[in-house]
């Protein structure tokens, strides 16, 4: 056996385990989505009928819209603030370690607890946020656009530090010499940020945006906890279909459609911006 073949043989068990753990549930859900269900019992093979039902359902498209809107808005906000956090955490100043710890605290809080906390803050009784901001009786969680923003704000608070952490890791790989050279050439802070930091940080930015977008597209916990599932994202709809309904055919179909959407968006990301990230040896480790 050649060394190459031996290597393959040794890798096979690992790939089989990964395939079983990661691939099997997806493939099985896709398979089951082709059937009708009577309660939890699989009945007739219906082909793509479940997909036709979902793709023609206004409720499905409304959930798609909510999910994508949430992703675009929350990831944009998190990226901006995360970048600021990263620059602060990267700067050399007294008390930097304390600052870093404080910035990262929200990310350490489990999402369910963060959700409960924000729900309590947004609720009209006792009404902390309305009072602090002098807003009067704003109904943040009950209905309409306000609950979208309430969940965005909670997610923003929770995950901006995570984006900051990913970007910080990237910032630390930029050698100081490059900045010194730029400074010698008389570059201002803005010029250094635009011409040195941003280009060298691109791989980290792509990774951060990819991670966050994929994660945001799955948003379930905050919407479920804060608005009692009134903010109906794709994952909320799928969860309702399996737990509260229960209609496994619809839930499987929704899960597969969500998977395809997230996978597609992830691939577009990688194809558009990330050619230099994928397959490139990691730097500085």
């Amino acid at each position: 056996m050649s060394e190459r073949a031996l290597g393959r043989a040794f890798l096979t068990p690992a790939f089989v385990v990964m395939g079983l753990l990661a691939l099997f549930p997806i493939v099985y859900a896709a398979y089951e989505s082709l059937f009708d269900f009577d309660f939890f019992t699989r009945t007739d093979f219906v082909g793509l009928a479940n997909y036709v039902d979902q793709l023609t359902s206004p409720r499905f498209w409304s959930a798609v819209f909510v999910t994508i809107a949430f992703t675009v808005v929350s990831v944009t906000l998190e990226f901006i603030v995360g970048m600021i956090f990263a620059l602060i955490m990267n700067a050399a100043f007294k008390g930097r370690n304390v600052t870093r710890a404080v910035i990262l605290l929200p990310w350490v809080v489990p999402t369910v607890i963060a959700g409960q906390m924000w729900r309590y803050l947004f609720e009209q009784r006792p009404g902390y946020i309305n009072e602090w901001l002098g807003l009067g009786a704003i109904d943040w969680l009950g209905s309409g656009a306000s609950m979208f923003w309430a969940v965005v704000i909670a997610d923003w608070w929770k995950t901006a530090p995570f984006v900051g952490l990913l970007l910080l890791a990237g910032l630390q790989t930029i050698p100081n010499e490059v900045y010194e050279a730029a400074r010698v050439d008389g570059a201002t802070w803005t010029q250094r940020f635009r011409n040195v930091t941003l280009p060298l940080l691109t791989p980290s930015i792509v990774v951060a945006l990819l991670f966050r977008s994929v994660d945001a597209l799955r948003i379930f916990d905050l919407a479920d906890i804060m608005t009692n599932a009134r903010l109906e994202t794709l994952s909320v709809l799928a969860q309702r279909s399996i737990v509260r309904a229960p209609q496994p055919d619809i839930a499987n179909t929704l899960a597969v459609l969500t998977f395809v959407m997230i996978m597609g968006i992830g691939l577009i990301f990688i194809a558009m911006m990330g050619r230099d990230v994928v397959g490139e040896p990691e730097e500085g480790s």
Partner: protein
Amino acid sequence: MSKNPFLLRAVGLLAVLALVAAACGPAPDEDDEAAPDPEDTAFTWAVTGADGPTMEAVADLWNEENPEQQVELELLPPEADDQRQAMFNDQVTEAGQYDVLGLDVIWTGEFAEAGFIENLEDMRDSVEGTSIPGAIESAQHEGELYALPYSTNFGFLYYRTDLVDEPPETWEELYDTVLEVQEENPDIDGYVGQGDSYEGFVVNYLEFLWSDGGEVFDEAATESLLLEGDHAEKAITFMRDAFEEGVFAADFNTMVEDDARLAFQAGDAIFMRNWPYAYPLLAGEDEDDPTEVADDFDIAPMPAFEGAPVDTISTLGGLNNAVSTLSENQDVAREFVEWAATDDGPQEILAEMQPPPTKASIYENYEDIVPEDQAPVYEVLNLVREDARARPPVPGYNSFSLAVQEELHGVYADGDDPGPALEAVNEAAENALVEDPEDVIEEEADVDEDE
């Protein structure tokens, strides 16, 4: 990694937090005395953990009386959806760990239709005339018993005696009273209840619907009557107007039972719709849960609409006990279910604790049984129990309920158009009556082709 001690520290911090969290968890096996000897354990009773101490007391009593056939109490999560999921899992995986299932009153049809629970029609004689009629109604599927009554729950009106002289008898009167009181006390909320998009909202909506003479189904549950007359629309538009005008509290649309109770208990509301559990807490039973209204509240039957054929209405809550079809201990399971429904022991435990029992004789002789501070509750329960209604336990009750939550919450809280929303709920009600709506649609299509 050595380049980045900070990341290392962050990971270390996480590890410490995880250890702290683990250390804060309950120590295992502290309270082992009550656990039955595993050798004598004959069967398992799976029931909500919401009233855990009551269930434990009932299980302990059974174990005292039946040393050879001990029951193991399996307390499920307090949330209804989670209990249902646990029972589904037991059935779908054919684990059969649960012999007796404590079913929410709205699940009878669904569980019976799915073949999860045994037909108990042959035990009808033991509960007919013994249990209250509404509870028996809720334990039936297609006219036959699939469970026996165990506990119940009624809603009634809590009101502030320092702000209101007499409790309102109609919704219109309640509406006007709130506006009048608010003229003097602009900061006080009017009516609080269960308005979040969940089962509690369905309970509240049905009370508005029924108290105008509206119905969801005909008596035999063969067709939806929701859109007969304008009752359904009147009920939801009353809620919408009351919410918009501030007769309902501004956060009515996100309230569950305890949000309403806390608001009323803090003295922030004039009226509240709630279950009996709130009464002792409002009266100051729990020192750690201070009350502002201990001497300033009373209870009364729920109002009805002016000119309605009924004076009051209450949606019934509660639990029925069913026997799992997977149970290998059918005989003792049935014995337990009958005992819990008809014996004075367990039923009096319910009367002394929470939730209320289903045995009618306890209501007749409540003065000798319930603690003195609970007596006013039973006085009002006796007024409302004849008019209390079970939510229709049809096979598709769950999807009907989800439609009410999803469609009608937006109508009263967000100004959605009631017309299409009620059409959608009506369709869900029609579908709730049949086994699998899709099959029926296909069958109808086949018939059309034949013609």
